């Protein structure tokens, strides 16, 4: 069974995905002007990988990528937010079976479906998981962590909604559509 969930391709996708997630998180985050909020392009990439390689890859890229990013940047992992990243990857990954991006299908219907999944995933991750764990692990004041979560969630929803959709759309265009050949 393990064989099925983690094919060699998925393992490599997790490894490379985590590396790219780290680099984007470190170098390709755009500050918005509001303190402590950045446009995290890494999450748009995470969404793309989750859709392409499924929930197992999504959860692992989120978890490993974010842990390594924290370790190389601050030297200490911040578990509540790491787990939130893994949740984002997992939930968006669940949509991968219903989207056929690999076959070049990414029209209006798929865009809406993808965005529903990504909004749900961000709400769960930053609205529930991250703040709750922050309170539980670090005993920080509730109103502070929920506001932080809300800001992070909204900025991520927008980032993934715009950048993620553009990335998937561009990717789908490079794939050959099923039945696109005509008989002459």
């Amino acid at each position, binding site marked *: 069974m*393990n*064989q099925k969930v*983690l094919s*060699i*391709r998925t*393992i*490599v*996708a*997790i*490894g*490379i*995905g*985590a*590396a*790219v997630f*780290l*680099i*984007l998180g*470190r*170098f*390709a985050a*755009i500050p*918005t*002007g509001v*303190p*402590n909020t950045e*446009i995290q*392009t890494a999450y*748009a*990439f995470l969404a*793309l990988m989750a859709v*392409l390689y499924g929930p197992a890859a999504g959860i*692992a890229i989120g978890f*490993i*990528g974010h842990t*390594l990013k924290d*370790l*190389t*940047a*601050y*030297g*200490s*992992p911040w*578990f509540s937010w790491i787990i939130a990243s893994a949740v984002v990857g997992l939930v968006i990954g669940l949509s991968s079976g219903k989207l056929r991006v690999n076959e070049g299908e990414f029209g209006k219907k798929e865009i809406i479906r993808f965005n529903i999944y990504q909004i749900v995933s961000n709400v769960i991750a930053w609205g529930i998981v991250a703040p709750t764990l922050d309170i539980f*692990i*670090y*005993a*920080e*004041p*509730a*109103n*502070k962590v929920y*506001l932080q979560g809300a800001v992070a969630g909204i900025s991520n929803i927008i980032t993934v909604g*715009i*950048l993620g959709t*553009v*990335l998937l759309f*561009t*990717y789908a265009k*490079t794939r050959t559509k099923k039945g696109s050949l005509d008989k002459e």
Partner: protein
Amino acid sequence: MKQTMLGYLKQESLIHNLTGATKLICLILCSLITMLTYDTRVLIGMLIFSVIVFRLSKIRFSDIAFVLYFILFFLLLNNITIFIFSPYEGVKIYGTRTELFQIAGPYTVTLEQLFYHLNITLKYLAVIPMALLFMVTTNPSEFAASLNKIGVSYRIAYAVAIALRYIPDVQRDYHDISFAQQARGIDMSKKEKLSKRIKNITAILMPLIFSSLQRIETISCAMELRAFGNHKKRTWYRERDFGIGDYIALVLVIFLFVVASVITLSNGGRFFNPFKSI
């Protein structure tokens, strides 16, 4: 844009000679202690312990100073936001209220709040030296082997190994692409408008992502050809057997873990409350 990333620093020291698995277990246990407890005595103890371990490692302070300043700045910011949002969190937790002086409006500094801030800061500081040490003293290839040793499936361990192996490559790719795009006049700096910057960043993302997807194909084909995953187990080139030092370190950290748990539990809660007796 020189290295701003923590990485392995080769050296000869007691800490370097421990196996990766030992260091990983120690790090996990120490993080668990500091994550669970809010007892000031335990936290101070952990901080002293990790500073001693840091001295043993012979890592120079200047090697990790940049990270430390970054963390301190972040901690300061965090403390300020906590105070702004909840100036009486400490009062809530410790159940007493000792006012010191008023700043403005609803913001009065209380002894309890200051104590709470001290604890939060300690909680973060206590584990930072250990985590930093783990990063600088563990060889990346050994890291994967040690993950496998403590029971993580070797497939996942190998994924981590791939990630560590390709971080420098991806970083180089990212900078190459970024410079190439800048040479074409695509501006990523603060001078551009936010909306323009978001558009410009896709000019870097696209090539980076497509080259990474290509890389995934190449590597997975190579691994498939070498029959990766054919057996239930695999061996690691960097794996080492436990030595005396490893056993001593493990016993010491497990002992610390037990002591910390006992002290925390004896409080009847996660918080050590010095205000009760006052």
